[in-house]
């Protein structure tokens, strides 16, 4: 009797003597986050108040709101900002129409043993470099490329898509589709089939059962998918640069340009901060609107 009590108590006593585990398990992630996430943002924040020395063209320490003033009042940047928002929203909407059926099918319709392989098929392209996949689209979309030579004979089908808005949208949808499918798949998989049976049982047609039961119950996955897709699309600069034309320039390209060719880090930093704040505010509003908590809630 006595020995069994001792045996039960000893594992809880041990860690107290030398608390290495909590230091390692909390300390390292904290260090990584501070070094690679908090510090860069703080630096960008500081830069955004610096100015450019008009004589030397170099960045100099300062405290000025001029960069923000320029970012927020200039009509050029406002238009590019609205265009960025529009492109990202359209790509997100199209991706959702594709991702939902795929995610739902894998999670809730396909037999269990097929879920793994199907999910793998979704993920494999994701392991290929973003840049390489985007370059691949150049070959497909360019005039007399794969798309034109394979499907060019179909009347009314648009050809010569490269360097158009469509190419940018196609590029975004393809590149980020997997990260939208995953949360939808997860919520579909967690959906208890008895809710659907109960809806049928109470007289709902399949369409009504979907609209009134399946859709609301998979909403957390949809919301997560939209957020995960929208944020990288909104800030992207590679896709519009490689696939888009001059009228498809997005905020990401402008910021990229300010840090690169224009060598105006303070203005690029101010634009970055504005974009980050916009995303934070938009997502907060979106979460409140979608009211995910209310579905499963505490």
């Amino acid at each position, binding site marked *: 009797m006595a020995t069994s009590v001792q045996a039960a108590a000893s594992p809880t006593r041990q860690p107290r003597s030398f608390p290495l585990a909590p230091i390692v398990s909390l300390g390292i992630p904290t260090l990584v986050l501070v070094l690679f996430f908090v510090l860069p943002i703080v630096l960008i924040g500081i830069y955004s108040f610096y100015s450019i020395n008009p004589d030397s063209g170099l960045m100099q320490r300062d405290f000025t709101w001029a960069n923000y003033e320029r970012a927020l009042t200039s009509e050029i940047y406002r238009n590019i900002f609205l265009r960025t928002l529009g492109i990202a929203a359209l790509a997100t909407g199209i991706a959702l129409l594709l991702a939902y059926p795929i995610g739902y099918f894998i999670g809730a319709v396909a037999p269990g043993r097929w879920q793994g392989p199907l999910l793998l098929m979704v993920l494999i392209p994701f392991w290929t470099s973003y840049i390489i996949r985007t370059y691949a689209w150049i070959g497909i979309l360019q005039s007399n490329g794969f798309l034109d030579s394979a499907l060019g004979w179909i009347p009314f089908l648009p050809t010569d898509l490269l360097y158009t808005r469509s190419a940018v949208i196609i590029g975004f949808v393809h590149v980020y589709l997997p990260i939208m499918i995953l949360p939808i798949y997860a919520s579909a998989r967690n959906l208890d089939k008895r809710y659907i049976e109960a809806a049928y049982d109470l007289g709902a047609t399949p369409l009504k059962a979907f609209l009134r*039961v399946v859709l609301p119950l998979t909403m957390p996955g949809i919301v997560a998918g939209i957020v995960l897709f929208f944020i990288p699309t909104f800030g992207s600069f590679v896709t519009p640069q490689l696939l888009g034309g001059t009228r498809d320039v997005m905020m990401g390209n402008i910021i990229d340009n300010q840090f690169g060719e224009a060598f105006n880090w303070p203005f690029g930093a101010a634009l970055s901060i504005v974009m980050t704040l916009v995303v934070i505010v938009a997502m907060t509003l979106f979460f409140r609107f979608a009211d995910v908590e209310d579905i499963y809630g505490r």
Partner: protein
Amino acid sequence: MPESDVSIRKLYKRFGNLVAVDHIDLEVPRGAFVTFLGPSGCGKTTTLRMIGGFEHPDSGQILIKGEDMGNRPPHRRDTSMVFQNYALFPHMSVADNIGFGLRERKVPKHEIRERVRRMLELVELPDRGDRKPRQLSGGQQQRVALARSLVIEPTVLLLDEPLGALDLKLRKQMQIELKRIQQQVGITFIYVTHDQEEAITMSDRIVVMNNGRVEQEGDAEEIFERPRTRFVAEFMGAQNILDADVTDRDGSSTRIRIGQREMTLPQALPGTTRHAALVVRPEKVRMDYPDGWKGTVTERVYKGATMSYLIQLEDGTIVTAEVAHDDPEHRHDIGDEMTIGFRPEDIVVIPDDGKGA
């Protein structure tokens, strides 16, 4: 025979190599509380799900009010199911859950409100309508699930082990409640359970199932007092099932042997059966019976009103006997030897069905 709400004809269903339901025939009378009783895997839930339209039979027919259901989907059947874990829609309030079926039927809003209110009263949950299901206790969720199914006034209500998740005390309470509600609304209930006590408490008719077949069908008393197969006797908790050999027979009586002794039963056994199982209730076992089987008391259990004795016969058979705990004539200690006997009229004879002995 009263009119049937549900008729099942030669119903057959297989999952892979497993025969879940093996040619069942059944009539469910209108307004009855019918229970499918059996161990897990006996086909009771599959049968219920086929009636609801969630599974489709491989062959055979299900008729509801005389109409063949074929492969008609659940939303076009006049049945409603109370699921094992209730399946209440978590994103809807209690009132919206109950009103779900009415909304699908395009009932006007004010009428939905009124009918939902009446249902909440029936299940004794008034003013809980605006809660979410997760804010209710298990028993309350159970009542909401019941109300949600009842409000659409189905011909048949199907209940799939609906009390399984509740604790014992709540179960007992809900059994009585369910019976009251069934009598009040007068709808046919088909109830699935593996708990024989639950079946006995509530049912007008019990259908005992095993291996996809119906073992016996009848009212609670019939099933409990006169089991027709060894399986039914065992499942209904018979404590004394004794193996007997048939030694002699004529048209009106049968001579049987248990252990070292024989006795004559005043009934003819069917066919040429050589073995039989005898079911004797513990309180019908006579202790200190003159000219009976010799046995030794191996255990004595005080059960409040009664005293229960385990008695081992000479051939090793254990018999349970129960007497009033304060009966001075039959008081024995462990190790005591005595004789026990049975009156022929207290014995239920089960001709050997080839499954026992």
